[in-house]
């Protein structure tokens, strides 16, 4: 699909008119920009990954802040002759151009469509030609991340049909392939397949391949682009599936990445956070609360320790936003599935500070509680989309909230089903044994109803994991013998093994220190 450089190829007179309309000259190239593209082009040709990264992360930001605060960068046609009209560089430049546009300005429909065309051209090159480049992981991640983001943005935009102009509707009808959900998913899938990344990761475990050890970079003269795009596309697929509400498939797409270990996904902070955020959210919707709590806890601790190093980075705001959202999701998980030992001290104190009061109210399961669940879910959830093409029939409506409303409704439905469990938990904590009759009395229900509550408690606190096994999430558990309830206290498990290992290493350290002193 050829890139559509419509308004750039127009004759000079149109440009003049355009300039007046746009308020800036797309063909004016400041010296600093000329210098930027010339150097970036050279570094890419010479595969100087470090320099590329510096220019991409820092120089581009600096120039954007200084010269292009609220205007786009110069058009690609204006800079093309500085870089030998190199097709691939121009596609990469355009990719950055559009990303800057989306971040600082509001893209028009035409620009959205053009951006899609650019991605198609760029991806076709990577998928079907031998590309001899090494690009920094940050850039490759940003490409996938931005691709999915622009897709999400387009779906939201398209779903607001009510105030669309005639021109916009005509364009939407004409370019119905732009940001088509099949196209988006198939590109991501194509990257995963063509790069053979799943097999590479498998073989890495057996020691036949090297990928994670080199952070995905190719030190034998090849290119890292296809492999790393394939890798990040797995995270991209997880994200798209979450936007569609298909959590099971989303998690399946991530199977080849072991989130209990470091990997290429942790080499870029944005990728690390996006992976864990969506993994946690999908787990929450699949009722695997303990899994979600564990992952959110680890991620939040990591952000707490490392966010100072990202203060100057363009991703800083996003990092903070996702941080807050994950605290909200953690609050939800812990309210639905109380656990005592899973959350780190630091994270716990932050959580209490932000949501302590709200969590107490959520456990009451009254109307106010549901309002809080609603509030937190709405704040923290992904921006769900309706992937199908719009209806052009009158009356035109806005349906951009439909997908979100459905997910919220089903989530609150699940919360409501757990309403009575909180009451049972309180009583179970107080008694070691109690007859069904007595407990029914205290809870002001009849025995059959109490039985249904107890069944529900057991069912809701025993989740089915990805292997089909049953795992108990219950912090307080029980069993019934005829008509007698026996409460089971979950004892904190003393990890003797770990303790001994640590002490052995410590002692060895002390002895080594002592030896060193004697020698001196």
């Amino acid at each position, binding site marked *: 699909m050829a890139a559509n450089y419509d308004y750039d190829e127009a004759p000079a007179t149109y440009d003049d008119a355009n300039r007046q309309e746009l308020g800036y000259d797309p063909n004016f190239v400041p010296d600093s920009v000329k210098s930027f593209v010339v150097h970036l082009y050279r570094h890419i040709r010479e595969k100087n990954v470090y320099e590329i990264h510096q220019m991409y992360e820092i120089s581009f930001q600096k120039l954007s802040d200084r010269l292009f605060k609220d205007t786009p960068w110069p058009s690609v046609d204006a800079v093309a002759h500085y870089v030998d009209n190199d097709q691939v560089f121009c596609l990469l430049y355009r990719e950055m151009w559009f990303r800057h546009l989306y971040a600082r300005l509001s893209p028009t429909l035409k620009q959205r469509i053009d951006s899609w065309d650019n991605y198609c051209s760029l991806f076709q090159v990577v998928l079907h030609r031998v590309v001899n480049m090494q690009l920094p992981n940050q850039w490759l991640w940003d490409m996938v991340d931005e691709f999915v983001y622009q897709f999400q943005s387009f779906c939201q935009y398209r779903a607001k049909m009510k105030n669309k102009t005639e021109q916009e509707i005509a364009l939407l009808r004409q370019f119905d392939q732009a940001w088509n959900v099949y196209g988006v998913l198939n590109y991501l899938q194509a990257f995963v397949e063509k790069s053979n990344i799943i097999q590479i990761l498998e073989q890495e475990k057996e020691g036949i391949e090297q990928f994670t050890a080199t952070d995905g970079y190719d030190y034998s003269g090849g290119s890292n682009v296809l492999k790393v795009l394939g890798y990040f596309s797995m995270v991209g697929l997880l994200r798209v599936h979450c936007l569609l509400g298909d959590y099971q498939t989303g998690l399946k797409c991530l199977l080849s990445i072991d989130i209990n270990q470091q990997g290429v996904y942790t080499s870029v902070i944005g990728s690390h956070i996006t992976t864990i955020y969506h993994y946690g959210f999908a787990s929450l919707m699949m009722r695997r609360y303990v899994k979600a709590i564990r992952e959110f806890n680890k991620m939040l601790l990591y952000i707490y320790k490392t966010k100072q190093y990202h203060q100057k980075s363009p991703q800083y705001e996003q990092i903070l936003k996702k941080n807050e959202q994950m605290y909200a999701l953690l609050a939800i998980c812990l309210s639905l599935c109380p656990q005592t030992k899973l959350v780190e001290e630091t994270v716990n104190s932050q959580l209490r500070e932000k949501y302590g009061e709200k969590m107490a109210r959520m456990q009451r399961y009254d109307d106010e509680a549901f309002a809080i669940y609603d509030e937190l879910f709405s704040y923290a959830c992904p921006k769900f989309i309706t992937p199908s093409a719009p209806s052009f029939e009158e009356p035109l409506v806005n349906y951009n909230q439909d997908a979100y409303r459905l997910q919220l*409704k*089903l989530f609150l439905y699940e919360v409501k089903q757990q309403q009575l469990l909180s009451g049972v938990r309180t009583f179970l904590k107080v008694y070691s044994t109690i007859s069904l009759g007595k407990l029914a009395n205290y809870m002001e229900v009849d025995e059959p109803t109490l039985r249904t509550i107890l*069944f*529900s408690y*057991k069912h809701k606190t025993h989740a089915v994991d990805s292997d089909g096994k049953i795992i108990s999430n219950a912090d307080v558990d029980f069993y*019934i013998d005829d008509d007698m309830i026996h409460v089971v206290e979950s004892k904190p498990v003393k990890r003797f*093994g770990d303790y001994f290992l640590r002490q052995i290493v410590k002692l060895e350290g002390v002895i080594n220190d002592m030896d060193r002193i004697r020698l001196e």
Partner: protein
Amino acid sequence: MVRERETPKQQQQVSYTVEQLVAVNPYNPDILPDLENYVNEQVSSQTYSLDANLCLLRLYQFEPERMSTQIVARILVKALMAMPAPDFSLCLFLIPERVQMEEQFKTLIVLSHYLETGRFRQFWDEAAKNCHIVEAVPGFEQAIQTYAIHVLSLTYQKIPRPVLAEAINIEGLSLDKFLEHQAANSGWILEKGHGRGQLIVLPRNEFNHPELKKIAADSVPLEHITRIFPILG
């Protein structure tokens, strides 16, 4: 429409191909008819594939004009039969709200609600009122009874006969027969309760017998020990 009865071998070939399609080429509108056939396949041969059904629901999401509510209803019934797995809600996440408002889906949602909240008596009553929905899928009754027994096994060490009867919707002589079968094959023990009828002792597991809970948390993986070999050696 008359469909030629496929030989068992042909049937096996069809499902193998569909599973492959879902794994290799899921984002493809052309496989929609295959997936729909596969749903009917699952119903008639009492098999189940969540991934294939989710794939179909996604395609319906992408092209709502091609959605068949009959197929969707069958998918939901199969998902219900997969309990305690959360498959039913996973499917609902992909079905538009206005479709969920239709009568047959409202009924299925109510049935799911009863099962999720342990209301077995209400479930069986409602299912009886809607036998056209549930009898359309063979194996439904047994699947739900299996789920009910699963929940009972999490909860009870010894369960009074009436409670069991209500949960699995079997009474009288049929229940006697059922209990005999379970005693012979699944390790159930039938006891005489103190004056109030039968007590059924369910098999021991870590959920109704906490002492059986494996202290797995304290096992140390070998890789951790290897780290201190230099010290020990």
